[in-house]
């Protein structure tokens, strides 16, 4: 009896202790943003200071970035530690560092919204006119409604297909030129013929990514987020687009195994294209540098197929600086320096990135090779419906794109009809938009 009473008393004490603990906040309570204002940046004051740049790489951009960092270190006397993480781990890694209060000074990201409240406003450091140095499309992805600029666009992306030119030649299928307009049925037909003639298991390889799937939605005339920032799916158009992609997956023209095997993670289709498992790859210009270096066959970038609309779907890579880092001003200065005309040009040329600066877009960037392919991608920017640029600047886009992948996966696995998928997506995106306000 004594033992039982003691156990009971211990259990009660434990529960009381937990209840008392729950009364104390596990950390500081949320407060409204602290006021900020103009900050003077003196590039001569960074000598001996250290900072960290958290980076993900698509390949050749890494060497170009290292070279630019070397020039920055020489110019300022500061030391920059470049930490490279896989793209798929970037958000988790950054989030863990925010939680642990060990944020890097600067990070390369594809969306600043998940880190809102942690970032420096670059207009505080470089003036209200600083955003004007960048193209409207690129800068729209880096600002909030109040005009604060929480990121600097370092490269513009636009989705588009690559083709295996050697495989097309072997199949006797003409490779489309930069001005070719082709429809989705023509695109699929060509890819299927080439795959069959070359004994390739799939016709089209594609990244498992909500952004890539948004390209097809855009071509069918709809987007996850509309121009007004609200849920923007047109159910009929979305059903058409998703049915078409699902048919390709069910016929294994796009590898169903690859798509479903990705789970909830991003998965790149570049390996299948490089291994000549598919003659066509839907991706974007960030692959050009890597393909130029390592593709064992002749390849080319070609225009996107059209449905109701043509063009691809935009994306952006940007640099952010964290306000709670040890050297925030050095971080802001580094971001600005890396995106000066001469530095962005050098990185763009070496990494095959599309420029975001107005002056570079106007003058054009001369790439060492594959200028035609880069121009094909640039031409796709003009073809892309403007609502796509609005959609990706929404704080809800990343969540909506993830919901698209999850919900569409159920269609591919035969657990849900396309109509139900679209109806569920509309509800989910609506909630995501509301939660992002």
């Amino acid at each position, binding site marked *: 009896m004594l033992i039982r009473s003691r156990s009971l008393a211990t259990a009660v004490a434990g529960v009381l*202790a*937990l209840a008392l*603990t*729950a009364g*104390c*906040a*596990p*950390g*500081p*309570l*949320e*407060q409204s943003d602290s006021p900020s204002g103009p900050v003077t940046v003196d590039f001569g004051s960074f000598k001996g200071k250290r900072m960290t740049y958290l980076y993900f790489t698509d390949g050749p951009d890494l060497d170009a970035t290292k070279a630019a960092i070397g020039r920055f270190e020489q110019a300022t006397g500061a030391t920059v530690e470049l930490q490279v993480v896989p793209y798929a781990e970037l*958000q*988790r890694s950054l*989030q*863990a560092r*925010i*939680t*642990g*209060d060990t944020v890097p000074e600067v990070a390369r990201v594809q969306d600043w919204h*998940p880190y809102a*409240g*942690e970032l420096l406003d670059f207009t505080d450091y470089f003036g209200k006119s600083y955003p004007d140095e960048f193209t409207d499309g690129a800068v729209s992805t880096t600002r909030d409604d109040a005009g604060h600029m929480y990121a600097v666009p370092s490269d513009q992306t636009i989705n588009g297909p690559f083709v295996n030119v050697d495989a097309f030649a072997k199949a006797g299928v003409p490779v489309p030129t930069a001005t070719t307009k082709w429809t989705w049925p023509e695109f699929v037909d060509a890819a299927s013929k080439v795959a069959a003639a070359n004994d390739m*298991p799939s016709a089209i390889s594609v990244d498992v990514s909500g952004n890539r799937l948004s390209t097809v939605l855009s071509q069918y005339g709809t987007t996850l987020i509309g121009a007004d920032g609200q849920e923007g799916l047109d159910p009929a158009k979305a059903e058409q687009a998703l049915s078409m992609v699902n048919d390709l997956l069910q016929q294994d023209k796009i590898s*169903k*195994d690859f798509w*479903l*095997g*990705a*789970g*909830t*993670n991003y998965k790149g289709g570049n390996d299948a294209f490089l291994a000549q498992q598919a003659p066509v790859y839907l991706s974007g210009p960030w692959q050009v540098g890597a393909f130029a270096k390592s593709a064992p066959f002749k390849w080319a970038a070609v225009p996107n197929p059209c449905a109701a609309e043509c063009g691809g779907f935009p994306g952006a890579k940007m640099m952010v600086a964290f306000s709670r880092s040890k050297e925030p001003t050095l971080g802001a200065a580094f971001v600005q320096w890396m995106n000066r005309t001469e530095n962005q040009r050098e990185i763009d040329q070496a990494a095959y990135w599309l420029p975001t600066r107005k002056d570079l877009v106007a003058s054009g960037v001369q790439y060492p090779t594959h200028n035609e392919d880069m121009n094909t991608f640039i031409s796709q920017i003009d073809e892309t419906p403007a609502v796509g640029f609005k959609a990706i600047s929404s704080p809800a886009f*990343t*969540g909506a794109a993830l919901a698209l992948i*999850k919900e569409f*996966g*159920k269609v*591919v*696995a035969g*657990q849900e009809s396309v109509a139900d998928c679209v109806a569920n997506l509309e509800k989910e995106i609506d909630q995501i938009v509301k*939660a992002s306000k």
Partner: protein
Amino acid sequence: MTGRADAPRRSRFTRRKLVPYLFVLPNMVVFGLFTIWPAINGFNISFYDSANGRTFRPVGTDNYHRILGNDEFWTVARHTIVFVVGFVVASTVLATVLALLLNGQKRGRGALSAAYFLPVVVSPVVVGLIWNAALQRQTGLVNSVVSALGFGQPAWLIDPNLALISVILVGVWVHLGFYTMIMLSGLQSIDSSVNEAATIDGAGTWQKIRLITLPLLRPTTMVVITLATIAGFQAFDFIFTLTGGGPVGATTLIIQYIYENGFTPPIAYGLASAAAVILFLVIFAVTFLNYLVGRRTEAM
């Protein structure tokens, strides 16, 4: 005088009582800092909302309401229960069979035990990657054998039902060696004279196993069931690299659900902590139930 004589005796007594605690103190400090404190903190966070894990907003029991009213959570809970039941039953049965076979082995028992134990020392992440390659539908090693036998190319990792079975089988493969060793040590602790007496009385092999070995092995079996249940609820690492929780969430278990809410944007630390508290309560209840059943069977 009595008081002075008592003082060294009391101090010796106090020292004798204190010394054992001093020996376990370093371990308890580490355990307290890295297990108990985070657990209490996790319980605390479950009553707050936080998008960054640094600043918090009190939300009362909202996180628990959100979880318990969330269809995805119940789907994950269902998958977890199927996994745990399949994993515990298969692990316990196979470990018992293997231990019986090994125990009857006169030669090479050590080498065979080492072979069965080998997967236990392989990193779970590597296990996931190896089996991911082996179970690929078109290019995997398993299907090259299966299709050669005329059974086609099952979609081990793509079919939602098969994927969960694949995950259970890989989980069993990983842990089987460990449970077999526990069972084997249980078998070896059974007094051999009991079996000898049964043999003299004319009992056959199956009768000896059924009527002597398995009943005497019950306490060890309960230990294996308890350990397998806990391991089953905590399964994550090898599944993450084997299927990533797919296809379409068919192999997403509770730990991955917690991980994704806690570390994949949009971050919901409070929600993840509430799910972790629920998991703790479930594991605690199941383990306690195992303990009660074990005590009752021992008493019988």
